């Protein structure tokens, strides 16, 4: 039991620290001994007026366009990724389309380090005038989230007995109808799990968003945090405040969906 407590503290502490820093006065950000429980709190970090700053750039109001972009990109990625991967997973698991080679290729795509392909992608999007657009980011995120989703869904669909498919064919349904009416609803937990994972990944993705965008038209939250980073900026409070804002939506969403995550992530590997 004690062990469990230690482990939980380990997991929780950094998040807690970030959280309270967001509400600390500037002289408390760095003090020795560290201020574990602040005596007074402030909202000024959200207004960007602590630590010698003057609102304006550091104010949390500037986060709105980035929040909007992140929401659009993450939701779109999650939704489209689930759709595409479920279609492909269905095709592969039921009809063995492409065989092991195709499946292997899809799964191996997850190994792609973003940093390796970002340059050609940059040139690619430049050619089509799609730099600094949300669509470009969505497309890239899709490439990185779909493989895992497909993999998970393949194993999930495996659990659904083929007899149900057969039954629907007997009833005169086409494979497509079978997909939408039988397989999809039965695999709802798996779909939810996959959507959540894709959302988490897209929300936190940094490198692609950084390199393919240049202003708040399309930049996402992780890039927004970049404005506070390294060296010259000393605004730990506003930074923590911004970090909190970046963190909360995805945490809330994931916690809501955790039940499905747990049901859905067995990779079908557990047989009775």
């Amino acid at each position, binding site marked *: 039991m004690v062990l469990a407590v230690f482990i939980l503290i380990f997991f929780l502490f950094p998040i807690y620290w970030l959280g309270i820093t967001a509400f600390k006065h500037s002289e408390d950000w760095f*003090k020795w001994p560290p201020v574990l429980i602040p005596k007074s709190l402030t909202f000024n970090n959200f207004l960007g007026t602590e630590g010698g700053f003057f609102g*304006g750039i550091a104010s949390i109001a500037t986060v709105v366009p980035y929040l909007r972009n992140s929401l659009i990109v993450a*939701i779109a990625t999650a939704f489209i990724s689930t759709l595409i991967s479920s279609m492909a997973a269905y095709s592969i698991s039921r009809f063995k389309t492409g065989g092991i080679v195709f499946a292997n290729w899809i799964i191996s795509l997850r190994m792609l380090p973003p940093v390796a392909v970002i340059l050609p992608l940059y040139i690619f999007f430049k050619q089509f005038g799609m730099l600094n657009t949300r669509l470009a980011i969505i497309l890239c995120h899709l490439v990185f989230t779909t493989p895992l989703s497909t993999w998970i869904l393949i194993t999930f669909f495996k659990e659904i007995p083929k007899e149900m498919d057969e039954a629907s064919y007997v009833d005169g349904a086409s494979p497509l109808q079978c997909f939408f009416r039988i397989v999809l609803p039965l695999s*709802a937990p798996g*779909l939810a799990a996959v959507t959540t994972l894709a959302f988490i990944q897209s929300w936190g993705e940094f490198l692609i968003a950084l390199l393919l965008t240049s202003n*708040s038209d399309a930049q996402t939250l992780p890039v927004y945090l970049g404005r506070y980073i*390294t060296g010259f900026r*000393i605004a730990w409070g506003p930074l923590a405040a911004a970090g909190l804002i970046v963190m909360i939506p995805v945490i809330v969403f994931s916690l809501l969906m955790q039940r499905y995550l747990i049901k859905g992530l067995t990779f079908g590997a557990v047989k009775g």
Partner: protein
Amino acid sequence: MKRKLLILCTYAVCVFFALGFVSLSFGSQKEEGKKAVTLNVLSSPDNADALAEISKRFIRINPDIKVEVSPVSWEVLYPQILADINAKTGAFDVCTWDLMTAGSIAKGMLDLEKFAQENPDFVDPDFNHDDFIPTAAYVYGKWEGKNIGYPFYGATMFLFYRKDYFEEPMYQAAFERMYGRKLSPPKTWEEALEVTKFFTKSENSMSPTEYGITLMFPRSHTLFYMYINWFAQMRRSSRGIAKYGDVSLDWGDLFTADKKPAFNSPEGVKAMEMMMEIMQYSPDPLGSDYGETYEAFGHGIAAMCPSWTAVLSGWKDLPELSPINDKVGVAVIPGGHPVSGGWGLGINDASKHKEAAFRFVQYATNTESDKLQWMQFRIGPTRFSVLKDPEVLADSPWMEGVYAYSLENASHRPRIPAEPKLEDIMVGTLSEILLGNKPNIADALDKLAMEWNKILGR
């Protein structure tokens, strides 16, 4: 029945998502259509607040132009500027560029002088070019004859120190006893070592601070410019000038007059040795950057802090340093040749809103803005008139002496196109030397010089 419910739910969720996505993207498209001319100003974080304030005033005077300041961290700003210059997409209209990137971005920046000549209607008649401090006008404005920017943030490093401790009779007496001279801000790095030891608890139990100085030698471009503070002491001594020739404003202190690396020399080695010696009396030098030294000095852990002027705006709110005029003194960096920093404000050659951009850049660098950025944000002025302004002098009396002297005698980094690359490998090598991984310093610096020559195509 349960199954139908499940199916219905799934469809409902899908529809909800789709609607949300569609409405969000359409919503913002409508917004974008309504915008007037919007200038995208790419700015480093330390300039961003001032630029935001300046933009607000600018928009009031020019309601037809909107200005959006996009702060990006230092490490990202330069690659972004470069990427856009090469792609010619005009993703930003105006940018702050760090003075040493002048050579590498020059080709993508608009020639402001030429533009002014071709578009006299946009030129502000009150904009005084002669008011700029000559060095500033050059390093933040010109590259190979092209006028690529107007000076925005004029900067050199300063030595900030605890005036209250330095003027405390008890410490003055003790220092005089130990070192035989008066306690005052050190003029050379040798003197600095003594003062540092005096204020380090482990060396001197009566020291009020734990460390004498707080230094930033991290694995980032900070280390590159910190090195020059030491190296310049010797490079610009009369012996240094005799041996290596004058320092060119384009090639900087690390090169000889005939453009060869000057740091692979006894002087270069000595600079490293001095750094290694003094860093023992500073908290975590290799893990500290600008922010860490700010906090260390700000909470009274160190007695001295070499840094840029922007720290003053934050320190005045910290209880340890209140009231700031009594506790913090400003002196010239030991060695007498502080490294220069600063930013120019330039226009992207591929910008689609050049006229609006020009009006903005002019406004942001005129006398009024220059004074505002100092008074409110501690961003160094670049104009003579501001340095002599009575309000400025009342607020910061040291401007006249220390500031002017530092600007005139500053040391410089190279501004040539290859600079970012040269800098990065130098930081790697210097970092390894400081870590103790390269005991033969002369050898390491020689190898570095060879790499530099390779990059420079020799």
